[in-house]
């Protein structure tokens, strides 16, 4: 049946929009700096789970959306997202077969890479923010990876 074989485009896009809304949700200041970059994690998930539905195009589009919402420079998050989705698509079979704990560590590295690219471009473009707060979300992101991957995997395999 072709419907069963089709890629979960709809869910990938829908969950990305939900994640985007989450990044724009106002939170009171102390919790604010711990807010995980959910959109990065969701796009990363789809890129390793189904590199066709996820992958570079979704990553680039999500990055552009982030640029509109929060970036001082257009293209900044798009570049960072393209980079991590590229890594995800290249290595998706290796990452997919790992247990959740190891995937969490990979997510940690990926989030660090993402934040590092954004941070560097912030600096080069003359909008530097050096406060250590900006690195906090990497840890929370890695912590929520297992439940997030389980949830997305559930919606994705249920059919």
């Amino acid at each position, binding site marked *: 049946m072709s419907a069963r074989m089709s890629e979960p485009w709809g869910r990938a896009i829908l969950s990305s929009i939900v994640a985007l809304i989450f990044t*724009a949700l106002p939170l009171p200041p102390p919790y*604010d700096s711990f807010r995980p970059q959910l959109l990065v994690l969701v796009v990363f998930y789809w890129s390793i789970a189904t590199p066709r539905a996820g992958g*570079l195009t979704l990553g680039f589009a999500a990055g552009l959306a982030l640029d509109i919402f*929060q970036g001082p420079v*257009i*293209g900044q998050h*798009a570049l960072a997202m393209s*980079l991590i989705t590229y890594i995800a698509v290249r290595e998706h*079979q290796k990452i997919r077969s790992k247990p959740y704990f190891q995937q969490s560590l990979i997510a940690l590295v990926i989030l660090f890479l993402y934040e590092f690219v954004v941070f560097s471009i912030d600096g080069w*473009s003359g909008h530097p923010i050096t406060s250590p707060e900006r690195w906090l979300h990497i840890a929370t992101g890695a912590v929520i990876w297992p439940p997030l991957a389980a949830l997305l995997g559930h919606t994705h395999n249920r059919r």
Partner: protein
Amino acid sequence: MAFGTHPPRSLPARGASPGFRFTLYAFLSVALMFLDQRSGWLERARYILQGAAYPIQLAVNSPSAAWHWLQDSFETREQLRAENQRLRTRTRVVDLRLLQFEALTRENAQLRGLAAALPPVAQRWLPAEIVNVELNSLRQRVLVNRGSSNGVFRAQAVMDDRGLLGQTTHVGPWSTEVILITDPEHAVPVQIERTGLRTIAVGAGTSGSLALPYLPGNADIRRGDLLITSGLGGVFPAGYPVARVAEVHRDAVQPLAQVRATPLGQIDSDREVMLIWFGEDKTAQMQPQKAKPR
């Protein structure tokens, strides 16, 4: 069985290889960044995209908007009466002060004798509501629900009833991003009201704090001094309150004094801000909702 680098189970991505696509997207991103930074080419695209993002931002805002609406509609008669009373008293006080202010303005103009040399005064304003959306937790920015369709322009002063809040940066069709004076990238030319000394107040990056990094160690500044806009630079009208000096730290080793000030505008508790037009020597008037031909 395995052929080359691609194991047979792997579904190759649609169309071009990921490496090629990554190169393409990376070049595209860098080109976008370059265009956005170096030239105004992307202003138009940004404008359209900001318009496209606005529905999502409104959706994010809707729970808190609904909550405020509920709170407003279930206020009791007593509360409303009390508020009404309070507002009426306040209006009376403000009216009296305004009369005095107008007399002073006239007198001031006569004393100076030079209409052209008068500092620009806020001419009209437009109330705008803050859209409750997190733009970037690392930066001090807010989104307000007025855009170029309401005549808002870039680098327009934004105030509340207590003091200066910031200026507009990215103007969309229905929404505008406001950079607050507390943002580390923002600097506002100020004047110490007591002495007339001019300096620059830079955002400290946290809400509720400004730094005055360019004052020499022997500058005449004290705790409690009021900082007003100096009007230099032309973005902000002169003479509006900005902040109150909270802390002056003088170190014999350091050539410059370390001064912190607390902004008077209450961005954390505001739901409504005012966008200011200024230019002519007129006192402020409420802007009519429909722009009248001028």
